């Protein structure tokens, strides 16, 4: 019997791994020596960075949602049948349909989800742009906004760590250009002692806040929201009033991870270099699902997927151990509606954002359309 590779999750990480395997192991897959199966919760593939643009009415569904099967190499077996129990002892995954999927190698790329219910009052009192429904509701709220205080508040943990800054700068551009100048105030809060996790980004962002007149408060972790009084209470003891609250809800991994006792809050203990689940030689973890202390972002999933696919190909073809992930992350940062910059870093190189430019903003808009090449394992 040939080697069976099972991929859980049809998001960025899982899709790139699958397509790279199909290219690197094409001969073996055609001979039946290797089988690649993918299980996903949906037959659609959603490019999630689009949600930021949806909130501003700048992207439509058909630009960022595609049929998952259309993105996968025909040699990959795709099933809309999400995993409900992972049994590493039996090397088998039980799916929602009741079917068992045995594996020789497992790639877990089930991603993360928002859990606004973890903060009392957040669901009732806040808007967000971290899922499609939330982004569309926010789009309506921004269109109806007539002035007042907008608060941007950030929960922990969360993915796409630059998105709160992007939203803040884009809001300021929107309202300063649409006739609301002097009728609104933006108040930005952040959980740690500076305005962004990355120190060089925080230094740059504080200057931009001061130039734009954006107020901010650090060491602010949401404890509860009072949607009637329109107040946010922080763990640190302060209370902030709002007219429109845009929050980044806290995140968790998918329930299947905790249900299978693989990791607290749905994050799997993972070796930061070879991306293997701790204690498991044949289980790889990709993207948001790892507990590695780096950004949860599509970019991280992308570079991790490259590493895992190359390691699997090397192992199956030649029995070699494969290569290590160096912690590489690359993120575009929109600095308003017309300009952008980017950061990249790895385990040894700190981020260093450059001067924002219109060209990088355009490059980001172009990448929003080029993403489908990344998902196919081409770019």
């Amino acid at each position, binding site marked *: 019997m040939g080697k069976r590779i099972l991929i859980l999750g049809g998001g960025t990480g899982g899709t790139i791994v699958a397509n790279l395997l199909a290219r690197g192991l094409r001969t073996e897959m055609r001979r039946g020596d290797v089988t690649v199966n993918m299980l996903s919760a949906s037959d659609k593939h959603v490019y999630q960075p689009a949600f930021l643009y949806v909130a501003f009415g700048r992207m439509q569904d058909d630009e960022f949602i595609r049929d998952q099967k259309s993105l996968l190499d025909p040699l990959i077996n795709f099933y809309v049948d999400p995993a409900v129990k992972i049994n590493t002892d039996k090397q088998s995954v039980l799916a929602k349909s009741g079917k068992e999927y045995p594996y020789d190698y497992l790639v877990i790329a089930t991603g993360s989800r928002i859990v606004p219910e973890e903060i009392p009052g957040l669901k009732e009192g806040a808007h967000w742009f971290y899922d499609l429904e939330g982004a569309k509701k926010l789009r309506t709220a921004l269109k109806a906004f007539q002035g007042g205080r907008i608060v941007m508040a950030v929960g922990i943990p969360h993915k796409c760590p630059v998105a709160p800054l992007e939203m803040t700068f884009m809001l300021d551009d929107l309202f300063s250009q649409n006739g609301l100048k002097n009728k609104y105030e933006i108040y930005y809060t952040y959980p740690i002692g*500076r305005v962004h996790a990355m*120190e060089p980004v925080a230094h740059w962002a504080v200057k931009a806040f001061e130039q734009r007149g954006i107020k901010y408060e650090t060491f602010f972790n949401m404890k509860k929201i009072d949607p009637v009084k329109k107040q946010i209470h922080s763990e640190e003891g302060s209370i902030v009033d709002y007219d429109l609250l845009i929050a980044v809800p806290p995140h968790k991994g998918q329930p299947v991870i905790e249900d299978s006792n693989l990791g607290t809050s749905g994050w799997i203990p993972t070796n930061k270099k070879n991306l293997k689940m701790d204690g498991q030689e044949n289980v790889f973890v990709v993207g948001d699902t790892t507990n590695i202390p780096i950004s949860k972002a599509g970019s991280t999933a992308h570079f991790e997927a490259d590493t895992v696919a190359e390691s699997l190909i090397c192992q199956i073809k030649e029995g070699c151990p494969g290569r290590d992930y160096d912690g590489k992350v690359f993120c575009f940062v929109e600095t308003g509606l017309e300009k952008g910059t980017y950061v990249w870093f790895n385990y040894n190189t700190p981020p260093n954002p450059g001067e924002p430019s219109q060209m990088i903003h355009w490059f980001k808009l172009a990448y929003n359309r080029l993403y489908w090449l990344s998902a196919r394992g081409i770019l």
Partner: protein
Amino acid sequence: MLDLKVSKTVDARGAFCPGPLMELIGSMKTEPVGSVIEILSSDHGSAKDIPEWIGKVGHEYIGTEQKEGYWSIVVKKAK
């Protein structure tokens, strides 16, 4: 500090984003009250930020040890 039994160690060395304090705040949510958490950080700002945040929210700061190229910061979840 060395006599305390550490319940969980978070190795955030080389973590530029989200960084050691964010990792600690996330861990504080999931660990039971009374847990002693050690965070390893190569970010010089964390040695100052972590005790400051711990003081603000009312947890217990145990101490910081500077080691070769990184800091070991130990705290206790108090509530």
